[in-house]
């Protein structure tokens, strides 16, 4: 972040300006400083009050809870006591095959979803940017439309399109003598990926398209003069120039993917392939609100948080190194 030059003077600068400044001028300047800090506090306090209550205290509470447990004294009589259990909840979470299974599911989901999403959104943006597309504004609006469909409703629409008897898609396949079970054991993760791609493709395409529009036209003209065809221009000239957007989209896609909850939660109403602990987020919900095991839920939350931080950091580092190599 750059800070623009401004005429403001730090509090101790009056000393260097010395005798040139009269006592009353100094006082006026001090008063201005005070007014400014007052303004900063008024402008920022409401948001930081929210940040504290909605973010800092809950994260702290989650970490705290993960080290404690409500132990019931023998036979369940008497008051519950909260006792320090150290890493016991973490051990329980990390050896729980349903939690590890959930992590595996999300890993598989990310492995399919992330490349598919970034590549298809980028390809569509490059195609729209190439100038060869008819009805460009209409195409963009059409692609963007699913972003205005709430996640739960996107999942509902696709659930019906996956349901035999209602779905015209399955009917079409049936006419060609193909039976497809979209919610079977091998198809359920790709089916969820499809819902996510459908929902977010247009949004990410618009992000890439906006970045491509900001690429200086001279750069593209230069590459055409050098004899590069449209495909080479797109892949070797334009794509590297929008890397910042690609990284941003990748990180946000990853963060959202790790939270996977809404779609499997809805599909689980109709598919026996989705258990109540299908993804880490569903595991947390199940542990906290079905099994009432707060320590376990908190430990699982902290593990999920750590995975998110590690992966975001990894993506930034990975692309940062690529940038450094490019610079050499």
């Amino acid at each position, binding site marked *: 972040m750059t800070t623009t030059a401004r005429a403001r003077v730090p509090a101790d600068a009056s000393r260097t300006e010395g005798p040139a400044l009269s006592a009353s001028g100094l006082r006026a300047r001090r008063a201005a400083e005070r007014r400014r800090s007052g303004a900063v506090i008024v402008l920022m306090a409401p*948001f930081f009050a929210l940040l504290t209550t909605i973010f800092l205290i809950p994260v702290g509470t989650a970490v705290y809870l993960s080290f404690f447990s409500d132990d019931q004294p023998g036979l369940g009589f008497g008051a519950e006591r909260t006792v320090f259990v150290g890493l016991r909840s973490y051990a329980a979470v990390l050896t729980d095959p349903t939690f590890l299974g959930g992590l595996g599911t999300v890993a598989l989901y990310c492995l399919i979803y992330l490349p598919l999403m970034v590549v298809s959104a980028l390809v569509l943006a490059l195609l729209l940017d190439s100038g060869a597309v008819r009805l460009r504004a209409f195409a963009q609006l059409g692609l963007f439309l699913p972003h205005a469909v709430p996640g739960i409703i996107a999942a509902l*629409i696709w659930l019906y399109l996956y349901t035999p008897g209602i779905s015209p898609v399955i009917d079409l396949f049936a006419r060609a003598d193909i039976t497809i079970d979209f919610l079977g054991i091998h198809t359920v993760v790709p089916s969820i990926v499809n819902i996510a791609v459908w929902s977010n493709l247009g949004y990410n395409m618009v992000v890439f398209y*906006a970045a491509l529009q900001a690429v200086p036209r001279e750069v593209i003209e230069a590459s055409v003069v050098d004899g590069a065809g449209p495909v080479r221009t797109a892949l070797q000239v334009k794509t590297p120039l929008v890397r910042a957007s690609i990284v941003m989209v990748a990180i946000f896609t990853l963060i959202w993917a790790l939270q996977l909850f809404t779609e499997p939660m809805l599909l689980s109403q109709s598919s026996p392939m989705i258990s109540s602990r299908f993804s880490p987020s569903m595991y947390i919900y199940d542990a906290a609100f079905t099994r009432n095991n707060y320590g376990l839920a908190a430990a699982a939350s902290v593990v999920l948080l750590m995975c998110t931080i590690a992966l975001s950091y990894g993506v930034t580092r990975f692309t940062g190194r690529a940038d450094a190599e490019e610079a050499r």
Partner: protein
Amino acid sequence: MSATDSSLLRPRLIGRATVNVVVAVSVLYTLLPVLWLVLAATKDRDALFSSDLLSLSDFSLVRNLKDLFAMDGGLYGRWYLNSLLYAVLGAAIGALLSVACGYAFDKYRFRHKEKLFGLVLAAVMVPQTVLALPLYLMASEAGLVNTFWAVFIPVLFNPFGVYLGRIFSRGYVPDEVLEAARVDGAGELTTYVRVSLRMLGPGLVTVFLFQLTAIWNNFFLPMVMLSDQDLYPVSLGLYQWNSSASVSPEYYPVVIMGSLLAVLPLILAFVLLQRFWRSGLTAGAVK
């Protein structure tokens, strides 16, 4: 790669056709499910299961609408109003708070500024599911579980809005304007409200729209906090009705009709505020 030589017209034409086919197929992929929703909303239950979508013989749009608002004593209308209240009011207040904070990050110098900003960015990354249990426990401590406030207060928090607010403030509000206002003797907050906020208008609308979408989509938090059906937003209500549909199929047409109506406000907002969010996307993406 085939179309490098402009004298070779044929490969170039083929390339152009391929490009258009790829884009057209993608647009069909995104549009057809929405079209299905519209068509399915006009069908009664039997026609829905016989899946002859294009026949207009059993057009029952009006009946489905009536059923939707009559089901379970008119719960759907209630949910719709709740969603509007959570989303419109929450996004309006949330956007004002975050943009004010982003503006302060851009225009003022103070100690630990970049550290505090780093904290804001960190908050963007934290999954909502991680915060849900502690928030539930805090709300239950404060006696707010199963009230309007349990959902409303957390949705006001929008750290990404602060990030956007800082970028917009740098782009839209020149420092000279602030200096001029100071020379004129205007107070800092007066300047913000009277001058800067007006210049930040498009940015404010963008943040509002993003937050509106997020709150309208919100599902996890209401599910954790609310047990009283009268407080549900549309998303949670439809989820619940859909889970009843496998037992009592009369819910299918109302769930589909309810989904269609729930999509409309966001589409309306996106179309009406189009020129604002486009600029917002650019600002968020390029930087």
